[in-house]
C-alpha cells in the first residue's frame, strides 16, 4: 500500500508538469491556433528558469523569467501563423526546432550546476494532509507548483466556460468571422492566447528544472513531455478538467515506470523488473505507447460525438474571405 501511495504522490507531482503544458495548449487551441512547439517552449522555460535561478539564487525570479521567455518564443509562431497565415503544423514544427536549439545553445554548461541551484519550496499542508490516503497523496511534501496546479484547474475551466473573456476566447476559435463582426479583435486575441500558451509551457518547463526533477539535462529535461501534452489536449477534448485527469494519470504512469524496478517483490511475487533490469526498456516505452492508446480513445470519442475540436483550429483568419 505504501508503495502505491508513494507512486501516486510522486505521480501527481510529475503530472503537474503535463498539466500546465496541456492547459496552456488548450488556451492556444481554443483560440484557433495549433501550436506544436510545446516541447521546445518547455525546454526554453526549463533552461531559462535554471539559468536565471543560477545567476540570482531566486527561483521565483527564475520562474517568472521562464514564463516570459517561453511566451516571447511563442510569438514567433503567432506571427507566422496569424499574421503571415502560414500552415500552423509546419510553423509549430519550426518553432520546436528553433526553441530546442535556442535552449541548447543558451543552456550550455548548466548541467554541471546540479545541486548548487536553489529549488522551489515543498511543504505539507498540515490540516489537509490528515485526510486518509488522499492527504498523503495530494498534500504531503508536495512542491508549491503542485498546489498551484490544484487551484489552477478549476480557475482555467471557469475562465474558459463561464466568463466573458472566456467566451470571446471560444468565439475566436469557433467562428472568427462572427466574433470579428461583433468587434472582438480576432488577431490580438489569438496573439494573446498563443502567448498564454507559451507562458504555461514555460511554467511547465520551470516546474521540471526548479522543482520536480531539478537540473538541466539538455533535451532529456523534457523527454517528449511537450508532445505528450499536445496529445493530451485531444484526449481532454479541449477541457481543462479532463486535461487534469489525463495529466495526473500520465504522471503516475511515468513514476510507476521508474519506481517499479525498485522493490524485490511485487504483490507477493518476485519482481521481474528488479531481477531483470533490461525489461526496464519496455517499461520506458509505456508512457509513449499509452499516449497513442489515449489518442485512439480520444479520436474515437471526438468522431462519435462531433464535439471538442474548435471549429477554426488550424485555420488562419483572413478578413473578408469566405468561410470560417
Amino acid at each position: 500500500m505504501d508503495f502505491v501511495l508513494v507512486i501516486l504522490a510522486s505521480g501527481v507531482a510529475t503530472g503537474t508538469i503535463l498539466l500546465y503544458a496541456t492547459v496552456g495548449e488548450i488556451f492556444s487551441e481554443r483560440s484557433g491556433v495549433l501550436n506544436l512547439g510545446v516541447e521546445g517552449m518547455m525546454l526554453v522555460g526549463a533552461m531559462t528558469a535554471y539559468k536565471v535561478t543560477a545567476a540570482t539564487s531566486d527561483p521565483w525570479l527564475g520562474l517568472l523569467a521562464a514564463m516570459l521567455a517561453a511566451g516571447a518564443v511563442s510569438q514567433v509562431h503567432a506571427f507566422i501563423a496569424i499574421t503571415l497565415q502560414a500552415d500552423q503544423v509546419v510553423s509549430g514544427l519550426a518553432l520546436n526546432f528553433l526553441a530546442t536549439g535556442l535552449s541548447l545553445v543558451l543552456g550550455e554548461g548548466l548541467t554541471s550546476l546540479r545541486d548548487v541551484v536553489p529549488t522551489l519550496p515543498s511543504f505539507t499542508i498540515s490540516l489537509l494532509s490528515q485526510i486518509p490516503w488522499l492527504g498523503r497523496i495530494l498534500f504531503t511534501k508536495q512542491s508549491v507548483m503542485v498546489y498551484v496546479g490544484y487551484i489552477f484547474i478549476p480557475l482555467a475551466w471557469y475562465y474558459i466556460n463561464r466568463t466573458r473573456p472566456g467566451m470571446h476566447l471560444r468565439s475566436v476559435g469557433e467562428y472568427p468571422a462572427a466574433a470579428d463582426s461583433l468587434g472582438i479583435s480576432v488577431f490580438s486575441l489569438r496573439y494573446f492566447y498563443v502567448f498564454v500558451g507559451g507562458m504555461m509551457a514555460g511554467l511547465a518547463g520551470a516546474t521540471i528544472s526548479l522543482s520536480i526533477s531539478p537540473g538541466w539535462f539538455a533535451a532529456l529535461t523534457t523527454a517528449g513531455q511537450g508532445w505528450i501534452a499536445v496529445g493530451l489536449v485531444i484526449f481532454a477534448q479541449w477541457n481543462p478538467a479532463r486535461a487534469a485527469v489525463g495529466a495526473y494519470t500520465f504522471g503516475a504512469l511515468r513514476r510507476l515506470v521508474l519506481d517499479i524496478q525498485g522493490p524485490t517483490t511485487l504483490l507477493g511475487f518476485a519482481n521481474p523488473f528488479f531481477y531483470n533490469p533490461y525489461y526496464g526498456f519496455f517499461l520506458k516505452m509505456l508512457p509513449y505507447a499509452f499516449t497513442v492508446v489515449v489518442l485512439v480513445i480520444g479520436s474515437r470519442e471526438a468522431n462519435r460525438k462531433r464535439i471538442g475540436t474548435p471549429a477554426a483550429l488550424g485555420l488562419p483568419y483572413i478578413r473578408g474571405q469566405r468561410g470560417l
Partner: protein
Amino acid sequence: MTQADSTKPIMGFKLPFKMKVEPRVVDPPRWYSPMLSVIAVVVALMIGALVIWLGGGEPWKVYAHIARSSFGSVGVLSDTMVKAIPLMLVGLACSFAFRMRLWNIGAEGQFFLGAFGASMIVLLPVLPEEAPKWQFIIVMALSGMLFGALWGFVPGFLKAKFNVNEIISTLMMNYIAVEWNNFFIYAVWTEGGFQMSRMFQRNAWLPRLSDFAEAIPVFRGLTTHMGLLFAIVAAIILWLVLSKSQWGYEIRLIGDNPRAAEYAGISISKNVILVMLVSGALAGLAGMSEIAGVVHRLQGAISPGYGYTGIIIAWLAKLNPLAVILVSILFGALILAGREVQPSGVPTLIQGVIMVSLIAIDFFLRNRIRITRRVEE
C-alpha cells in the same frame, strides 16, 4: 485581405507611397520560389550569427570553420557526403509523406528500426556469416525497409482507421523505437557488457569508394559508400512516381485538396497507409545504409537527429525529391562540422532558424506587395 498597408500615418509620418499586401492571383515565375529559399537561408544564417554572438561565440569563426571542415578538401567533402546520405533518404521519406500533407514526424524512429532490421540479418543471424556480400546488401536493405515500413504502418493504420493525429503518434513511435533498440543493444546483442553489438564482418559492409582505390587511386581513403546510390535511385523513382504516375497524381491531389480527391473516388485511407509504408521504408533504408555503410554495428548513438533534420530538408527542397539530394548535402555539411562547434546546440539552432525563416518567407509566395504612389487626398 488584412489592411496591413500604410495608409495610416505611422507616428505622424506619412510615407510618400502606399504599400498594399494582396493575395497572388497569377503564379509567380519559376525562379521566384528558389530565390526566396536562398534569401531565407541567408537571413537564417545571419540570425544564427546574432544568436551565437549573444551566446558568447564568434559567429564568423564558427561559419568559416563549418565551411572549411565540410567542403575544404576531397576527403572532407566525402565525409560530408557520408553525413548527407541518411539525410537524403529521410528527407525523401518526409517529402513524400508531406506531399500528401501527411505529417510523418517519425522518420527518426523508422530510421532506428531500419538499423535494427539490417543488424538483425547479421546478428541473429539470418544469413550465414560467410554469405557473399551482394546477398548481405540485398537482404539487409530489404529487412531495413521492412522494419521501417512496419514502424510507419502503425501510425498510418491508426490514422486511416481511427483518425488518430499522425504527428503525435509518429513522434511517440520515435521514443518507443529508441527504447526498442536499447533493449537489444544492452540485453541481447551486447558485446562484453558494452552498449553496442559486435562489429559486423566485412562482407556485411556496404562497398565504399576507398574499396576501389586499387583501380582508381583518387578514391584512396574516401568513405562515401553505396548508400549514395540508394539515395539517388530512390530520389529518381520518387520523382517519377510523384510527377509522372497516376498514383503520384492521387497523392498530390489529396495533398492539395482532400475533398476534391474524395469526390474523385480516391481512397484517402488507403493512400494514408500506402504513403506511410513507403515513407517508413525510405527512412528504414536510411537506417540500414548508416549501419551497413558507416557504423558497422548496432549501437545507441547512430543518429544526431537525422529524422528531424529530414523534415527541414523536405521543406527547404519544396518537397521536390531531386532537390532533396542537393539540400541534404548542405545539411550534411552542417551536421559534420557541427560536431566540433561549441556550443553544441548551434546546428539545431541554425536548422530551426532556417525553417522558421523559410516558412515566414513563403508569405511572399502567396501574396504580393504592391507599392503605389500616394495620391494626395
